[in-house]
């Protein structure tokens, strides 16, 4: 047995000592390819790391108009979005930073689907809330926000969260503080009801193993692993369609996270 192997080993050793250019070149080529692949994958991973800012919210919250205003500064009539739109936004304070703004539809049937697609690429999330209709819609807003917050990818990446209270130009709009308090209360209740919901068909619980915030204490936005801020803005602007939108807070925040 050893005798049979010996001549083979001898042949191998001879090969290595007297380098046959063909074999060597093949080996080198293979190594080069592997190294390139590794480097490329690393670079890809770093580059595609989350440069997107998602615009989420209920239907008619003003996401698409906000999107248009941020990008062009002009007012546009918008329709209910049925698909996403994305564009690169240059921060206005002359830094060379730019982020990709992605505007997702708010329609109930579509929102989760698009969220699934883009949540991995999200560096930050802007959750747009309609301040005027908030009293009526508080439960729906809270439910969507809850779904976003307990998502496992979102919890893992912990993107910065900005809750933009839109439509402040209308006099009946609620203030950001009020919205924050109401949302905290609502999310507090939702924690309980969602985790008590019947388990899903394939065994995974709807509320997810994640528990928002700390148990035993009332829910607070400071308990979340990500930074949460509230800002007031108005996509339409106080001077109507001709003037500019009032969203300096939003722009400053975007500049900060870019």
């Amino acid at each position, binding site marked *: 047995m050893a005798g049979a192997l010996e001549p083979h080993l001898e042949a191998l050793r001879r090969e290595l000592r007297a380098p046959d250019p063909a074999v060597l070149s093949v080996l080198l080529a293979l190594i080069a390819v592997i190294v390139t692949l590794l480097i490329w994958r690393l670079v890809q991973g770093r580059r595609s790391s989350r440069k997107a800012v998602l615009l989420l919210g209920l239907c008619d919250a003003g996401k698409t108009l906000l999107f248009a205003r941020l990008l062009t500064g002009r007012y546009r009539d918008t329709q209910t979005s049925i698909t996403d739109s994305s564009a690169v936004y240059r921060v206005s304070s002359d830094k060379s930073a730019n982020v990709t703004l992605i505007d997702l539809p708010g329609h109930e049937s579509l929102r989760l689907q698009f969220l699934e697609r883009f949540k991995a690429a999200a560096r930050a999330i802007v959750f747009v809330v309609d301040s005027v209709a908030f009293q009526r819609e508080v439960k729906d807003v809270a*439910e969507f926000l809850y779904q976003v917050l307990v998502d496992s990818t979102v919890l893992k990446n912990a993107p910065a969260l900005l809750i933009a209270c839109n439509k402040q130009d209308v006099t009946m709009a609620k203030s950001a503080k009020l919205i924050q308090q109401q949302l905290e209360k609502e999310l507090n209740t939702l924690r309980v009801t969602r985790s008590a919901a019947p388990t899903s068909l394939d065994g995974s619980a709807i509320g997810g193993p994640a528990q928002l915030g700390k148990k035993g204490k009332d829910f607070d936005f400071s308990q979340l692993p990500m930074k949460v801020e509230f800002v007031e803005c108005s996509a339409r602007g106080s001077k109507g369609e001709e003037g500019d939108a009032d969203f300096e807070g939003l722009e400053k925040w975007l500049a900060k996270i870019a």
Partner: protein
Amino acid sequence: SPFAQERGGNNSFTHEALTLKYKLDNQFELVFVVGFQKILTLTYVDKLIDDVHKEFRDKYRNEFQQKGTLGLLNGTFDFKDDFMRLLRDAEESSKVRAPMVMKTFEQSLKSQKTVKCMIETRGEKPKEKVKNKKNKGSKKEGAEAGTAPGKASAGDKQPSGDREELTKDEILQKNREEFFRRHMKAGEKSSKSPKPEAQKEKGKKPRVWDLENSNAKVLDYSNSATNGSTEACPVEEFDPDAALGDRNREPGRLYDLEYESDEEAEEEKVVQNPSKPSVKKGGLGGMFGMLKGLVGSKSLTREDMDPVLEKMKDHLIAKNVAAEIAVQLCESVAKKLEGKVMGTFTTVTSTVKQALQEALVQILQPQRRVDVLRDVMDAQRHRRPYVVTFCGVNGVGKSTNLAKISFWLIENGFSVLIAACDTFRAGAVEQLRTHTRRLNALHPPESHGGRTMVQLYEKGYGKDAAGIAMEAIAYARNQGFDVVLVDTAGRMQDNAPLMTALAKLIAVNTPDLVLFVGEALVGNEAVDQLVKFNKALADHSMAQTPRLIDGIVLTKFDTIDDKVGAAISMTYITSKPIVFVGTGQTYCDLRSLNAKAVVAALMKA
């Protein structure tokens, strides 16, 4: 919302007093919508929408392809003039076909019939014969130039125009105008049939029933002057509406839906580059045609998708989706994908499957919140009981699932009153009593602060269900119960008196949640059941907005392995969510729906 709910199969959509006809351009992700008043039948709408589509696309093709989102946002789409021109052309082409003078007897169709034709019964046969004659005549004279200038020009324009663009309406219009043209030359015609003329000298003005769709204009017997003006008026009346619907929308709104396609546009940009070399390759030989099919820039046509869609439709039907729903779904997916440019290395099958999967997930996503506990808490705060009514056909599992739901509610600390409104079936009340006893044994009053968590409210058999329900709710309010679960008798959807009784119960008691209990084993029946139940509830309700079914409970889910199509059928018909899923006969067998798992089971080969 027809797009959002995957109902984009038909071309038209009615909303209040308007009919909206739409056309999708999937290559650039555009939607063209034309709105007009429902009572008016405008025959040029289809042609108009096609023309607008083509012009717009050609004019702004560059902008779509190169500039992407920012370009679309910034660009001005000055389409107004073009649109007005197209609208005017379309209107004129339809106006021309209006009838002018009342026909004299010689010009009418009756004079053309032979005596033999007239003697036969006025069924389909004489009409067919006359039609054949008419078609033969029109073929003969197709080449001749008509004397009436306007009609002739329109008529000649059309046959020479795009053959594919002729819709069914247009073909009929074409036939009709050729028929008119023929009668302008009354002299030639009357020489062919002297006999009937001699016989039918009654002077009675005939009614032209042989033309299938004589619209109001043909039947209008006022003279030409008033014809012209009355005709002008309706055109002007709805012109602002139709045009307003379009004028305001086209420049501003259309492009907004376009710029949402930046992702697609980027993909297209990427695809354009490989497409250029592949186009050159295509010129090199048929062998590369196959490669071109693989490597991007291939836009999907109906023919490509049809075999795949057929297969998917059969697959869905095999998985117990109702047949009509499967057809509509496939139509909607086809409309969505037509003309779309595929990415690199994607086959038609995979694209279609992907689109279908997304469509199914979209359907199963609830349109409204599905959180019963939250709503119960709300009602608790207002100190009134939360009333849930269960309805459905016989034997689907209403009482069993009612018990399961009450168990779940008790586990979460709410007290439940069960109202036994099934006063018909033998043993219904006893069944609920047994459940109550068991549940109380599982959750004795001691562990809940001394109050009985479950109680049964019953009044025996043979009484009026609506009355029992009302008393039960009043009792619950007095005693401070949190939830009232109303169990009704099973009834077939065709049984009119029973459906009336159910509608009365719901209308009178206004429950917070009306749950339709359906079993997962049902196939095409699901569609019929739900439609009829909803109709009954809507018909017998006095209110402005009738209470319809709010949610679905899907039972006996453990009996089907992966033939889960009933879930799709039910949610598609009602667009209401599936609130609970029953998976067995013990108290713990209550689940909530996981859309992705169901769709995965559906799409699994």
